[in-house]
């Protein structure tokens, strides 16, 4: 099992307390986590990504309990093993699309995977945009750049937070297709957190947080 959680709880304060159901997801498989807002979807995703530390329980990603890692080890682990796609795409504004993707490889591995970045970008139909600044791209194109960036280090776990909510039907469908196809191609476990009902029909493996 690529991803597994046990007895996961988290609270910001006494009022908001989350107890999450057990999750598991294997390589090349997809898991859709749904739920209305305020149910801790983003919190769960941040826990899985190691951005937050759980109060109780274990998160095991490829046999490593990430809550036992130090801050620095966690940074490195995250860079190498986890690809994160966010609802809104953020970029280094002063660097081009290609450089943004290459930077992600450098930060995780210390090597600049330029050829791989170019290959990924052309796979995502961004060949002609790679020397532009991210701000010059459309929202749909920006979302695809963040997918390329999430995949550049061939992560074991691909996490997507509302990847389609800001996109129209056509683009939302395209992105969902791409995520599914690429997670299979790169043998990553795909976890999508969303309240977008358009995705519910597409992925069979679902967990509802309600």
């Amino acid at each position, binding site marked *: 099992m690529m991803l597994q959680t046990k007895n996961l709880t988290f609270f910001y304060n006494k009022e908001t307390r989350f107890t999450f159901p057990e999750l598991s997801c294997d390589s090349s498989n997809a898991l859709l986590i749904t739920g209305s807002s305020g149910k801790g979807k*983003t*919190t769960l995703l*941040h826990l899985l*990504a190691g*951005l*937050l530390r759980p109060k109780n329980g274990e998160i095991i990603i490829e046999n490593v309990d990430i809550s036992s890692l130090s*801050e*620095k080890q966690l*940074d*490195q682990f*995250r*860079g*190498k093993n986890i690809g*994160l796609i*966010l*609802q*809104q795409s*953020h*970029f*280094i*504004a*002063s*660097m081009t699309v290609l450089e943004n993707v290459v*930077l*992600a490889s*450098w*930060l*995780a591995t210390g090597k*600049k995977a330029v050829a791989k970045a170019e290959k990924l970008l052309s796979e995502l139909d961004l060949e002609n945009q790679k020397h532009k600044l991210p701000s010059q791209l459309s929202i749909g194109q920006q979302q695809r750049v963040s997918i390329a*960036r999430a995949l550049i*280090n061939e992560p074991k776990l691909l996490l997507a*937070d509302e990847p389609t909510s800001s996109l129209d039907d056509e683009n939302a469908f395209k992105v969902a297709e791409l995520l599914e196809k690429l997670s299979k191609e790169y043998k990553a476990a795909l976890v999508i957190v969303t309240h977008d009902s358009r995705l519910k029909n597409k992925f069979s493996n679902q967990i509802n947080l309600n």
Partner: protein
Amino acid sequence: MIAKLAWRNIWFKPLNTLLSIILLASSVAIITVLILLQKQFEEKFSSNIDGVDLVLGAQGSPMQLILSSVYHIDNPTGNISYDSAKVWMNHPFIEKAIPLAFGDNYRGFKIVGTNSDYLDKYKAKISKGKLFNKNFEVVVGSEVAQKLNLNVGDKFHGSHGDAIEGEVHEHYAYKISGIASSTGSVIDNLILCNIPSVWQMHGTNEKEIGNPAHGEEGNVHEEDEHVHTEACNHKHEHQETDMTLNEPNMEITAVLLKFRNKMGIVMWPRIIAQNTKMQAASPAIEINRLFSLFGIGLKALEYLAYAIMLISGISIFIALYNRLKERKYEFALMRINGASRLQLLSLIMIESLILCFVGFLFGTIFGRFALGFISNSAEDDFKMAFNPLEIVWQKETMLLVATLIVGIIAAIIPAIKAYQLNISKTLANA
């Protein structure tokens, strides 16, 4: 890669960056000019007093005596009797005594009666021709020769006093016997002859004596009248044979004294003031006094430069701090991609340090251009040139370190904020 990112980020907001760099560069420029100016100024002044322990001259302001007789930038205090000066010049305490007699100028360059010791004191060689050995033969300084395009064998008439407009002595012409090598000292801007030339020039020009005294343009205080009688001889009218140093009752302007027995340096100023109508002034003391006067102005400028540096530090701080808000997603993103807290910290530090280093670089270059301009005008006004290409390693390295410290301090708070950034919160609120 972090450095490259820092470089990109700096130029992503070029106006902010430009402002910070300009502020920093101007403060560095001012400090660089001050460093170079102070060092070269003191070197120039100190090198000229090498080997001069005391200056013997007419009573008056000791600083004026030093400025006029050692640096040739002020009017002389008056004249002294050569006969009474000789008593002190031949004293056993004295290792070397160089007499100076001022009188005329040629196109603004002072003609000074002296002897070959004066050239030796400044380690000046005769680069062309030979030393003056007859009356009215002159050796011109290297700068004079170059600027007025003079050559060995040329003849010219001097003008009376310090001013170019002074009355021209038509009776005798000076003839250039030699040109001195360049020394970097006052001698480069002087025309040298023997002392009898000065006497004879004025001795044959009796009516001149009633003229306004040297340098005092137009009206003269009455008591100065008899002092400022040049190194002139009242008795030798229409001299037909050349004068020699042995003429009685002649006057000179000053004597540069070097002591064999250093006791004299302390004793003589009082002894001479009590027993003669002359004074003995110490160049070292007077120049120290001058530096401390200058020092106030230089200090004020220095403080101004530090104030500008502080402002530029604040401007860098504000620029970095303001951008933090828009950049926190960038930072969160970098953390997601595996960047450590320290990498974010160093990114901001490097950005600030690049700004400071670029500012320092421009500052030292601008400073040297500024010194070039100052040097040009100082050369016109005071015959004093500065070398803008000199590097004062120790002080300029300290300046670089100070600039970089400003950069580090300006970046500390923004860098710590980036270090402590809560990624989850930042992304959740996006």
